């Protein structure tokens, strides 16, 4: 049964994750009930499920949004103890769980807000600190836990709308079996949430935030919000799992939620595979079943039972897995798929089966997209072009006054005032180290700066990345800043000016509308890519592009954002003559559509042929502004470039 290349689908709505989820859940049921598991094994099975849920939460925190956190176990503890307290106070069971999750969310929010600027090891230690504080407070706060040492028993059991899932009067086997269904259903829901997030803009934006927060911010991603919501979501899932665990077992003790579990959850995610929602399932299986398997081995080595060494063997296996599968156990499946994929050439041999297993390369975006026919640029941009013409004397769209940036004692930019007129290309040249890039960094908020900055009459606050994006100023970077973990088209999608329904909640409750928007955005991005000639590479990972192609990708990303002003930092660096000429063509087209451009470059012929005006910087000062021929005859400019002859 062959299939033709069907309608192209945006990256976020490809594949058949729901079918996979159903298959997975069915498989888990088979695994649980097909072999006759002993009571001990049933217990381990349930632990596997609950750890998986916790780790999926951690996947949102660390895998998707890159926050090096060790707080998952502590949030599980908060959930467990808060909901047990609430049930002891007489609250309904489900309400109590919700209350526990809410309290965890509150703590997570406060923490994430306080630590929103910390990264890597700083965040790691901050979360470890938070875990220790939570652990000590709960262990010592006897009035809250109702027990000295916080080892509480007789926690209200799970009861869902009259169905008593667990009870102290049931036998252990019955409890284990019923709890299995509760845990599995919860896991299904949590996985569904994960799938929804992956099938929306939220995951892509979180990855952009994770890999390069400052760049993501200048592209318009609300980085702080993405970061904090992801942390809260992950912690809430952890708290939910924790409180289910406590109620499912009927008891809780601080040791269950120790730092050991926090590190364990970290291990589970990494061993399973950090880049995949299915990674936690494999990782938790490894974490739970390997020690259990070793425990039940009856082998004698050097007069010792081998299970005495189970921890050592476990540690060694962990080491070996990390050495051979650095991408985690899920990497086995990925390698397998890559192996099979070699035989399935795009278009040929494509069946519904290869589609299902994700073996077929996605249809590239270059093909015309029937239902979406977008003009090359936003209508309002074109309107601007029509009203203002190519250049209008004096009307400045971007005004920077007295911009100053210092690094320690060095004044990198020392009082630069520069206007960019509506619909012009302004060249900014100067020797290396004269402060051109720093000036751009100052305007886009990447470095702290002082002075006044105004775009189309609107004042813009300096020092915060993203403010300039909000008024339509886009930029490219001296070293191209593209996202290696995203495909080109996704990279372009990051900068979209249409940010409606890109949040997490929208991805859950407003799916049809989210998807419709996503298709439109996809069309815009594909057009932008085609404009710079990268259409055929749309589905390639951005990391595989050459240096020059990355520059063009950055340009496409800026175009897709429908900018009013474009700041380009050495766009021609690394391009050959033909590519440079094509680039000049793209830039002229943009000007014709009403975009004003500021271009920093060292290729003077490129600048002279392209720009309406040229500004020259030296040692942090603006030396001259004017039309190219005049500026380059000015003695100060000659001195700045060639140096002053000593006499």
């Amino acid at each position, binding site marked *: 049964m062959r299939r033709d290349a069907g309608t192209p689908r945006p990256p976020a709505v490809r594949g058949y994750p729901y079918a996979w989820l159903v298959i997975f859940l069915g498989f888990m049921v088979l695994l649980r009930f097909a072999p006759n598991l002993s009571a001990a094994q049933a217990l381990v099975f349930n632990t596997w499920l609950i750890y998986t849920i916790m780790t999926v939460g951690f996947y949102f925190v660390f895998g998707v949004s890159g926050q090096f956190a060790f707080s998952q176990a502590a949030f599980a503890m908060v959930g467990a103890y808060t909901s047990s307290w609430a049930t002891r106070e007489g609250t309904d069971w489900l309400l109590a769980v919700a209350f526990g999750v809410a309290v965890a969310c509150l703590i997570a929010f406060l923490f994430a807000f306080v630590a929103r600027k910390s990264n890597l*090891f700083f965040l790691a230690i901050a979360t470890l600190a938070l875990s220790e504080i939570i652990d000590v407070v709960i262990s010592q706060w006897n009035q809250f836990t109702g027990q000295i040492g916080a080892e509480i028993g007789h926690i209200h059991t799970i009861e869902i709308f009259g169905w008593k899932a667990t009870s102290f009067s049931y036998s252990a086997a019955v409890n284990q079996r019923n709890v299995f269904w509760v845990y599995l259903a919860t896991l299904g829901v949590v996985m569904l949430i994960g799938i929804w997030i992956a099938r929306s803009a939220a995951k892509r934006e979180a990855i952009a935030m994770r890999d390069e927060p400052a760049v993501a911010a200048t592209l318009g991603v609300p980085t702080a919000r993405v970061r904090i919501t992801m942390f809260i979501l992950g912690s809430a899932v952890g708290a939910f799992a924790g409180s289910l665990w406590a109620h499912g077992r009927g008891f809780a003790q601080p040791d269950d939620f120790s730092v050991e579990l926090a590190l364990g959850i970290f291990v589970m995610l990494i061993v399973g595979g950090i880049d995949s929602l299915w990674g936690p399932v494999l990782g938790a299986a490894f974490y739970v079943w390997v020690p259990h398997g070793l425990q039940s081995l009856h082998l004698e080595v050097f007069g010792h039972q081998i299970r005495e060494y189970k921890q050592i063997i476990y540690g060694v296996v*962990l080491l070996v897995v990390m*050495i051979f599968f650095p991408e985690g156990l899920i990497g086995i499946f990925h390698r397998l798929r890559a192996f099979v994929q070699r035989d399935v050439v795009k278009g040929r041999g494509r069946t519904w089966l290869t589609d299902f297993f994700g073996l077929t390369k996605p249809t590239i975006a270059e093909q015309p997209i029937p239902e979406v026919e977008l003009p090359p640029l936003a209508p309002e941009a074109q309107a601007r072009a029509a009203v203002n013409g190519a250049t209008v004397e004096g009307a400045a769209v971007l005004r920077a006054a007295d911009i100053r940036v210092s690094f320690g004692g060095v004044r990198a930019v020392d009082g630069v005032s520069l206007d960019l007129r509506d619909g012009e290309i302004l060249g900014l040249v100067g020797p290396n180290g004269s402060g051109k890039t720093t000036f751009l960094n100052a305007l886009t908020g990447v470095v702290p700066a002082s002075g006044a900055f105004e775009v189309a009459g609107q004042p813009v606050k300096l020092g915060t990345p993203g403010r300039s994006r909000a008024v339509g100023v886009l930029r490219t970077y001296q070293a191209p800043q593209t996202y290696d973990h995203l495909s080109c088209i996704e990279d372009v999608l990051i900068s979209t000016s249409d940010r409606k329904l890109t949040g997490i909640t929208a991805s859950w409750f407003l799916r049809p509308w989210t998807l419709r928007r996503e298709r439109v955005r996809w069309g815009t991005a594909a057009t932008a890519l085609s404009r710079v000639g990268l259409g055929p590479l749309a589905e390639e990972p951005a990391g595989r592009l050459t240096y020059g192609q990355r520059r063009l990708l950055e340009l496409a990303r800026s175009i897709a954002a429908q900018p009013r002003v474009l700041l380009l930092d050495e766009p021609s660096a690394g391009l050959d003559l033909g590519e440079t000429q094509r680039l000049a063509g793209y830039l002229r087209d943009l000007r014709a559509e009403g975009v004003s451009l500021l271009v920093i470059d060292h290729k003077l012929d490129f600048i002279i042929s392209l720009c309406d005006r040229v500004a020259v910087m030296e040692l942090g000062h603006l030396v001259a502004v004017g039309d190219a021929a005049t500026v380059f005859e000015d003695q100060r400019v000659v001195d700045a470039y060639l140096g002053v002859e000593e006499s």
Partner: protein
Amino acid sequence: MTQQITRETATPALETSEPTEESKRARWSRARIAWTLVAVGFIAWAIAAFIDDGTLFVALLGAGIASGAIIAIVALGFLMIMKATGIANFAQGDLVTLGAFLGFWATDQLGLAKDGLGLSLGFGYLVALAIMFVIGVVIERVAYAPLRGREIHVVVIATLAVAIVIRTLLAIWQGGDPRSLQSWFNPGGSLQNFLFFDQGVLRINIGFLGVHDAVINAQRVVIIVVTAVVVVATMWLFARTSFGRQVRAIAADRETARLCGVKVNRLSMLSFGISSCLAGLAGILIGPLQAFDLNLGFTFMLLGFAAAVLGGFGSLGGTVLGGVLIGLTQELFGGQMLPMVAGHDALKYRSTLPFVLMLVVIAIKPQGFFGRVTRRL
């Protein structure tokens, strides 16, 4: 040539958010006033505590500085590996435990240790430290070298695996019973009445301030002195030797350093060795003060990590300062100053204090006290 060259001046229509230098100074001074007030209040609080119970104050001061010194040693070990390899070694805590146990194994005279060597104190501890160095090198070969260049979290997992192996091997070899180390100043050691030390304790007598009998355990004095020596030596190592220069080069830019001929391999082995030695030293120093078991190192690892973070993962001085700050917070602030105002119940939550301090620091300075963001776009 229609256009005139103009020296660009600020457009008058645009309002500048004005004299940057002065407004900056004004804002800074406001912050400074606030900080000064906080500091003055804190010192006043400390003085009140001193007047309230001088004996306790001095004892806790000594304990705080000593415990801070141990934390600083652990943190220096962290820093060493961090600089040379760019990763955090999560086995550091179990290396502290291992050091203490190796010291016990080498010097135990009572036959409690399995296969004990029964060496004299000084020699035994030196043997333990030498073994620690070798173990550090082995860890580098087994757990780090195959993973070099991989992502940080993968290496972190490898160090966690090493921690598990060390801990389990120790449990099988020496068992989990509480142990204690000998010191020269404890009963049973050799230098019992050394100089002004009396029965293993230093007595401080400042009569006119009402401090009559403040007691600082001599082992704590030893800890402080040894730490001072170690810190100076490490600073010398980093600043003056070829090893230090190369490590700094690697810390700044791995690839370039390698291309310039820095032997990255040998350097990372060396730094793992030294770091492991430092961890062992911390274990041996703390051993005589408390009974310890397999969990000895974990808290020290957390606190050492915290100290390194306070120092911004770069400055040695900052790290030591961070360590002492943490030690003082735990002992002096938590032991005396806080209960003065919050009542005796506050003692229960005392162990959270260093971590509260951490969170406060992270909130104010997201990259630590001496940290800098150097990434250029």
